[in-house]
Structure formats: structure tokens, C-alpha cells
């Protein structure tokens, strides 16, 4: 949606939105090859493997195609720049803060991640671990993986509540995981005892906020993200903007992106949703 908006704004841009059969690197490479073959001007990719796409994307760049990654990144050799939805350290801090805010006296929290290979999840968790010192009394007791499958995430969440009867919060920085965990908490009758938080979409989480399984959660605006990625790709491929450390690249209504040493930049802060504003957003995204 955001990409369409950007395309409309720019006028001379056609968006091809496509994806592989399953979320494997090999599948994405097939898609990249098809895009190379069509001689597109730019590829904006959200990778499911940091490294495996590098050779394919390098080939795309060799053939004069602009490559940027967004959301879930590609290693620096494989793209010109990477657009983070938000700064990783901000997200890392945000997810633990969301949990800690509701635990003034400290408590046990557990992490429910997606797959063991999801780049962004793991970076956020890493960033989160760095700032743990700022939250005394909060203890991360376990990290489990729901593989972005509803049933596995559900089971993992149930397992967490059994293994740690005193668990106070589950942090799931994944949209599948957070929904499944909230459902598991409702089914276990632990609403009020265990707070589910993390990153999720308002449309999917509205039920959990309503039931009280989740007090609050955060997310950036995916529409803005698509918009920004499109704008960036346009700037690089059509306006000859160089992606280099320190560069500032405009992205329409979203201001501009400042690149760090890895040619990475962050879009904006995640936004927190709770009972007070969920109804307003649940029908938007």
C-alpha cells in the first residue's frame, strides 16, 4: 500500500510485488533471477536470510540494478543500503520496556522468537540483552522459537507458562508469535498474570488487547515502510543518488534517511498501541 502511494506520487514508477512459494532463500533467489531477467530498475527486498541472497543480489547489481533491503536485512555486500523500520537498538529497548513498564517490582520474562534464522529478530534480541542492565529486577528466563507457526508458537508459549509458573510476561517480537502467545494466555486462564507484549499489528492484536492478554505492544507503520523503501529505491536508481556512509537520502513525506557505516538507516520509532488507541488503528493495518 505504501509502495503504491509512493508510486502514485512519483508518477513514472511501476511496482512489481512478488514472493516465493515458501520462505526459503532458494525460493527468493528464483524470484530475484526472474526480476533480473525483466531488467527492473530496482529491487527492494526483505530477506529471510542475511547471507544466502548476497551472490544473487550482487549479480543483480552487476547488471545495473539498484538493490536495497528493508525490514529484514541483507549483508552489506549484497545491497546498496538497508532501511531499518526503526533503529535496532530502539526496538531492542522498546520490547523490554513494554514488558518492564507493567512490572514495577521486577519479574520473570520470556522471549518467543520466530525462526532461529530470522535476522531482524535476533538483532533485536541482541540489542535487548545489551540494555537489560537498565531494568533491574527483570530476568529473562528463556528464549524459545515458534518458527512463525501459529501452533508451534502457541505450544511454546504454553510450555513457557508451565515451566515458569511465576512468569510475568512473554515478549514476542514477531507478529505470528505475539498473537499465538496471547491466545495461549487466554486459554491457560492466565490473563492478568502473564502479559504478552512485543511487536504485532493492531488489526491482529485487537482481540488480545480487548481480552487483556496484552496490555500494550508496538509496531512501526508498515505503510510508511513500503513508502520509504520505494522512495529510496527511486532516488538511487533514477536520481543517481549515491548510497555511502553518512549520506542523507530523501524519502518523500518521511523526511530523509541517514546512513551509518554499514549503509544502514532507520525510519522512525515504533509506535505503542494499547487499549486507548487500538480501535483507531485496527482497521488501518
Amino acid at each position, binding site marked *: 500500500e505504501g509502495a503504491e502511494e509512493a508510486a502514485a506520487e512519483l508518477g513514472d514508477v511501476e511496482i512489481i510485488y*512478488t514472493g516465493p512459494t515458501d520462505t526459503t532463500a532458494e525460493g527468493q533467489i528464483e*524470484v530475484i533471477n526472474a526480476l533480473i*531477467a525483466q531488467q527492473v530498475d530496482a529491487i527492494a527486498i526483505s530477506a529471510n536470510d542475511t547471507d544466502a541472497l548476497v551472490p544473487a543480489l550482487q549479480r543483480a547489481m552487476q547488471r545495473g540494478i539498484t538493490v536495497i533491503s528493508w525490514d529484514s536485512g541483507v549483508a552489506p555486500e549484497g545491497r546498496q543500503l538497508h532501511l531499518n523500520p526503526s533503529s535496532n537498538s530502539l526496538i531492542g529497548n522498546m520490547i523490554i520496556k513494554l514488558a518492564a513498564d507493567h512490572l514495577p517490582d521486577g519479574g520473570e520474562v520470556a522471549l518467543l522468537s520466530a525462526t532461529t*534464522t530470522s535476522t531482524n529478530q535476533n538483532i533485536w534480541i541482541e540489542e535487548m540483552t545489551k540494555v537489560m542492565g537498565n531494568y533491574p529486577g527483570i530476568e529473562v528466563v528463556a528464549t524459545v522459537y515458534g518458527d512463525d507457526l501459529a501452533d508451534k508458537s502457541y505450544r511454546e508459549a504454553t510450555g513457557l507458562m508451565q515451566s515458569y509458573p511465576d512468569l510475568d510476561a512473554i515478549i514476542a517480537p514477531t507478529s505470528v508469535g505475539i498473537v499465538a502467545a496471547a491466545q495461549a494466555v487466554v486459554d491457560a486462564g492466565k490473563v492478568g498474570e502473564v502479559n504478552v507484549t512485543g511487536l504485532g499489528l493492531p488489526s491482529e492484536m485487537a482481540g488480545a488487547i480487548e481480552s487483556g492478554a496484552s496490555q500494550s505492544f508496538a509496531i512501526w507503520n508498515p505503510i510508511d515502510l513500503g513508502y520509504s523503501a520505494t522512495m529510496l529505491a527511486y532516488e538511487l536508481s533514477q536520481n543517481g543518488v549515491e548510497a555511502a556512509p553518512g549520506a542523507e537520502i530523501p524519502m518523500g513525506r518521511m523526511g530523509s534517511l541517514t546512513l551509518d557505516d554499514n549503509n544502514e538507516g532507520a525510519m522512525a520509532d515504533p509506535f505503542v498501541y494499547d487499549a486507548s488507541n487500538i480501535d483507531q488503528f485496527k482497521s488501518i493495518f
Partner: protein
Amino acid sequence: MTDTSVQARHVPDRLNTRAYRTFRSWEALLLAVAIAIFIINSFASPYFLSAWNLSDATFNFTEKAMIAFAMALLIISGEIDLSVASIIALASTAMGLALQYGAGTPELVVIGLTVGLLCGAFNAVFVTVLGLPSIVVTIGTMSLFRGISFIILGDDAFRGYPASFSWFGQGYIYWVFTVEMLLFVIIAVIYGVLLHKTNFGRAVYAIGNNPTGALFSGIRVQRVKFILFLLTGLMSGVAAVCLTSRLGSTRPSIATGMELEVVTMVVLGGVNILGGSGSIPGVVIAAFVMGLVTFGLGLLNVPGIVMSIFIGLLLIGVIALPRLWAMYAARRA
């Protein structure tokens, strides 16, 4: 003994029986499908008829096809190996591990192939020595092999393969012809000869049609099956080398779901999933068909999941249509 019996009847060598013709027509049919897809593709997308693009498209099937040839023999013999994709994961992980200890390209290749062989041997022991059904064993080892990769790698990845290593999956022999294509052709020829022109191939067919009868005929059934599992493991090792080289990194989730695509390719190639019949030329054409379909639809930017509908329909349709036609013809006659 000639005097008591009547004049020995002359039995001709061959009659072109219907079964024979049906067999012939399978490859013919498949070839027609492949050509049709090629033509449709070239009309549907202006980008299709380009040497470089077609060359890129071959990556869609070369690695799978390498395994498919060995798998074809295995399936003809009445067994199956669903763990091939997991063998790739384990072999790739082993290569990555060796890399950490400073292995160079030759060592990496040897390690990849060896691990493939060992995994094949592991399956073979369960199937031929313990006598368990291969579909079940390999459903187990499918989890086990990939599981070991996960234990070793966790959420990490091995990267930094030497530049010379990238030759296998990214190199070109001449102009647009890739190393993988060359390997594909060599392996196809080797397996074609092995299955159709040697005693070993004959034994494979005999076993697939009647394992007990083959045993009673003095064929070392378990040994042949053992070798077939080794070959399938080895080919998975080769595919692991190519794929790892192409991706330039290893993660435990590498090649997820590839086993079903390999089996699909083999079945599409006319190999009887129940064993006993099939041919390598059929599998070669099937590889092209699958590669062309995915690439052609990719050019039209059809999402992968919708593409899989086409593959599914192709799989059933290619078998169903001739039978429907025969039924229709029989009714009219």
C-alpha cells in the same frame, strides 16, 4: 528331448506391444509439454528468449535434478529417500564447520561429498540391514539430519567461503554455460548409462518389480539397494556443494522442502512411484519442464504459492490426461 515334443514354436523377439508404446509415448508427451511451455513462455514474456536469462533459469532445476537422477533409480528399485534436503543441510553445515578450521576448496568439496555418502549409508543401514521401510526411515532421518545442523549452527550461519569455492555454484564454463549445467549433463549421462545400459540397471528394474524374485534370481538385492542409497546421498552431497557455493553461506534451513520437489520431478519424469519402471530421459525432460514453468511464471511475477498450483496440476494432469483420453477413446470405440 526334441523327439517327444512337437516342433518348437517360434517366439518372435519383439512385438510392439501396447505397454511398449505407452512407455514410448510418455517421454514424447512430456517433450511436447516442454516445447509447448517454451513457446508459450516466449510469447508471454519478452524477456524469456535471452541466453543469459535462460542460463539463470537453469539454476531453478540443476541442483534438484542432480539428486533426481539418483532418486529415480532409488524409486525404480521400490525405495524412496525423503531426507535428501536434510542431507544437503548437514553436508553444508559440515563444510562450514571445516571452513572454520581452515579447510580450502578441495577439502570442502571432499567433506561435502563424504558427509552426503555417510548420510546415505546411515539410511541404507536402516533400510537394508534392519529391514525397515525407507519412506518411514527417511521421514525420521529428514528430521535427524537437519536437527544435527541446527544443533551445530543454532541461529548462526557459516559464511566467508573462499572465492575459488564459488566456482561450483556461480562459475561459468563458457559464455552462458554454467558449471552446474555441465555437472547436470555429466550426471544425467552417467545415470542414463547406469540405468539403461548396465547389469546394475537391470538389477534395479528387477528389484523394483519383484524384490523376492530378484533375490531368488541371485541378485544381491540388499547390496544394490545399499549402493542406491549411497548414490542418492552422494548426489545430495554434490548438490550441497553447488548450493552452498551458490549461496555463499550455510544456514540449517538451507534447501528446506527440496525433497518434495525432487520427488515431483522424478514422478513427472514418468518414474513409477511404486517402483519397477521409469527412465532417465524422462527425468531430464521433467527437470526442464519444471524449470521452465517456474521461470516463465516468475517472469510474469506470479507469486510462488500460485506457481505451486501449476506444478501440482501439471503433476496430476500429465498422468491423468492420457488416461482420461484413453477412457474417452474406449467409450467412443
